[in-house]
């Protein structure tokens, strides 16, 4: 009797199986990257440390209550006006002598900040404030800083600050990164982001 050869396995459904797997991985793939507002928290300190004394004129208080309403410098304000108010405060440049601000274009109001290095924005929120509102307020305050930094960077180096930072973080940027870093440092020294957050009120 002739030797029977082993029957060949039908490989026709192999493609189906592979397609099934392919579709599974297609669906589960996420190529998006997260983005968000980066902040640095202050280090933990014991309770008994005396806070430094800061002149009232250099503090810009933003209060958010549990109904998501804003109280800015003891006046009620809409969120849409916050950015402008913050820029006005930072850019005031009311200082004289050592504290004078060489680049400020503000109103030089004697009751507002002396210069951007001294100016502090203090954000106090309530425990009942919604997170969305808090982020919106943070976003507006960061935007105020960015607006000023952009203006100064444009004036001094002919390039906006956000563009400079973008180039600096871009691995494919083929300019001089050290020089760029120096420029960024100059701008951040001129307009430091001094955003203080107090413990929430309950």
């Amino acid at each position, binding site marked *: 009797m002739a030797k029977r050869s082993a029957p060949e396995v039908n*490989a*026709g459904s*192999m*493609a189906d199986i*592979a*397609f099934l*797997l*392919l579709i599974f*991985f*297609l669906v*589960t*793939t*996420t*190529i998006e*990257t*997260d*983005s*968000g*507002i*980066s*902040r*640095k*928290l*202050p*280090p*933990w300190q014991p309770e008994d440390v005396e806070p430094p004394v800061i002149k009232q004129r250099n503090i810009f208080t933003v209060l958010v209550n549990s109904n*998501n309403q804003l109280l800015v410098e003891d006046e009620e304000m809409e*969120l*849409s006006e916050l950015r402008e108010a913050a820029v006005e405060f930072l850019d005031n440049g009311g200082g004289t002598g050592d504290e004078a601000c060489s680049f400020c274009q503000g109103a030089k109001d004697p009751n507002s900040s002396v210069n951007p290095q001294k100016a502090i924005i203090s954000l106090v*929120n*309530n*425990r*009942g*404030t*919604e*997170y*969305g*509102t*808090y*982020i*919106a307020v*943070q*976003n*507006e305050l*960061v*935007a105020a800083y*960015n607006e000023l930094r952009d203006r100064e960077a444009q004036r001094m180096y002919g390039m906006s600050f956000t563009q400079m930072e973008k180039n600096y973080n871009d691995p494919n940027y083929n300019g001089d990164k050290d020089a760029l870093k120096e420029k960024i440092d100059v701008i951040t020294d001129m307009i430091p982001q001094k955003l203080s957050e107090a*413990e*929430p009120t*309950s």
Partner: protein
Amino acid sequence: MSKFKKKKSGDLPAISTASLPDIVFMLLFFFMVATVMRQNTLMIENKLPFADQVEKLDKKDLIMYIYAGKPSKRYQAQYGTEARIQLNDKFASVEEVQQFIYSERESKREELIPYLTTALKVDEETNMGLVSDIKQELRKAEALKINYTTVVGDAMQNVE
């Protein structure tokens, strides 16, 4: 009558699909390599707020995720509707945040520890009380670099 009569056929021969699996497998391997699986199954509602002054978070392996929000529908019977923290795959209390940070640090290489960032993925309807509590714990654990993860968009949409 010959045994070896050539079959007479005028039809076109069928195109061989034998190499189809190879092509598909090639695609499959590409997607398998490129896939980043969702690390955590979300047990909470997580609608992120909008912001436009954002920075990108690269280097996924250097990020620790903390989620917070209302428990999603299927867990509400068990855990209620009060906003909660989720670490890895389970609900956690505020006190457990520190422990979580320490164990995450433990799992990373020593020279990478200063670059670790904590990403806070918090639902936009959560109260700030919970977020502040998390921030206090992070300060105690000396995890000072944080990022409020947001969706890129106009921040005014948050207050509507």
